[in-house]
């Protein structure tokens, strides 16, 4: 069977499976990214807090998760939650290992990891704001919430966009690691195909091509979005 038959959409082609797995990769990366955005917002907010303990916690969070391999975090989340679930199942008379849902734990793990990167990006964006604008907002009598909504958020979002785009690309690539806990995303599907047809090169190269397609397309999308948010802004360089 030649390559195009192998990856084709006929009954014994793998085209459908690979495309479905690509969809799964995008889905798990998207959820992970969204979780990371939430953690990033919390982390950045904590890093600007007046409470010393909160600032310390934010610093510990970013240092630890940017220094520890993602694979270890994925293992922790998967086996950690599995042992909790197994413990609960044992109460109901089940014996042995009960696996946690791979999609949920995987997305949560890469979310927590990318949240550390996201914290740095969002922090940098807030620091890039013109201090005078915040002071002017206060001088107008804006409360902290109104100030955040009208002055900080619109501008920080603009500065953060390039960095957020980078984090998305990272999450996209990290999602391949979720294959180790058995979620059938692109990487895992390629493993399955490679195993059953004994054509590993064809499958892994196809997976690489599909990843490249996603990162390229989303890179272009972020570039367009960046151009749009920057419109009407005078550039120094």
């Amino acid at each position, binding site marked *: 069977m030649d390559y195009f038959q192998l990856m084709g959409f006929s009954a014994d082609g793998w085209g459908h499976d690979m495309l479905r797995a690509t969809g799964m990769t995008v889905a798990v990366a998207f959820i992970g990214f969204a979780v990371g955005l939430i953690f990033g917002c919390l982390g950045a907010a904590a890093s600007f807090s007046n409470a010393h303990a909160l600032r310390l916690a934010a610093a510990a969070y970013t240092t630890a998760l940017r220094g520890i391999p993602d694979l*270890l975090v994925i293992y922790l989340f998967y086996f950690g939650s599995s042992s909790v679930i197994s413990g609960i199942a044992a109460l109901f008379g089940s014996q042995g290992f009960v696996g946690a849902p791979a999609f949920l734990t995987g997305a949560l793990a890469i979310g927590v990891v990318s949240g550390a990167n996201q914290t740095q990006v969002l922090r940098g964006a807030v620091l890039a704001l013109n201090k005078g604008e915040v002071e002017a907002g206060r001088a107008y009598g804006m409360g902290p919430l109104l100030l955040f909504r009208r002055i900080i958020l619109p501008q920080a979002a603009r500065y953060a966009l390039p960095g957020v785009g980078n984090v998305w690309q990272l999450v996209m690539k990290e999602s391949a690691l979720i294959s180790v806990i058995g979620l059938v995303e692109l990487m895992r599907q390629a*493993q399955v195909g490679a195993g059953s047809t004994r054509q590993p*090169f064809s499958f892994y190269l196809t997976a*690489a091509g599909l*990843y490249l397609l996603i990162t390229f397309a989303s890179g272009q999308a972020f570039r367009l979005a960046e151009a749009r948010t920057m419109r009407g802004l005078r550039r120094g360089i």
Partner: protein
Amino acid sequence: MPFDLTFLWQTFVSLLSGIPLALELAALSVATGSLLAFGLALMRVSRRWWLDLPARFYIFAFRGTPLLVQIYIIYYGLSQFPALRHSFLWPVFREAYWCALAALALNTAAYSAEIMRGGLLSVPAGQIEAARACGMARILLFRRIIVPQATRQMLPGYSNEVILMVKSTSLASTITIMEITGIAAKLISESYRPVEVFISAGAIYLSLNFIVARLFALLEWSLWPERRKNRLQSNIVEKKGELHA
């Protein structure tokens, strides 16, 4: 399951034995990867499209795909070709160690090339013109003016890349290599105690990366004599300012 300090200590000790292999993988891949990256960076700044384009494509392909796919293509994928399996190269590509090393080196080369390109481009045009006006030939100009300045300019970015590589060696565990993460995964599946294993392994990676970061900071400090002097001067100026105020 109660938190067990003895188990934590035992885990820590058995994970320590994975450090040499992890460091070896990181050091060798960074070393070979940086040579490759230097060539790629030169191709990118060469202003010749037939050099620039292949380098651009290489960087695009390796930065746009997960490292795990690259490792699998080399370790599992290449065995699909009987020609390679029967060639003299097979003893090399059969070994997980060499495959992991090759994938890590090829991967870091793509990222480092862009960092190096940024460093090369940061050298002010005026300095290069001045060196040319002094009659420096290309190689001498490169050695005396461009490389020293580009090197220290790119150090912060490059230190990030090296830290990423220390973390990336963990992926070698997916192709049976027993470095720190490989041992950790084995311990987790034997003991079902992911939290203790994670804490020990995490502490080891954090300390390794801390050491790498400090080493690069030291290197940067030793390569910027005028910055050290300036900092001293700016400190003095600040003190004076305080006195006046």
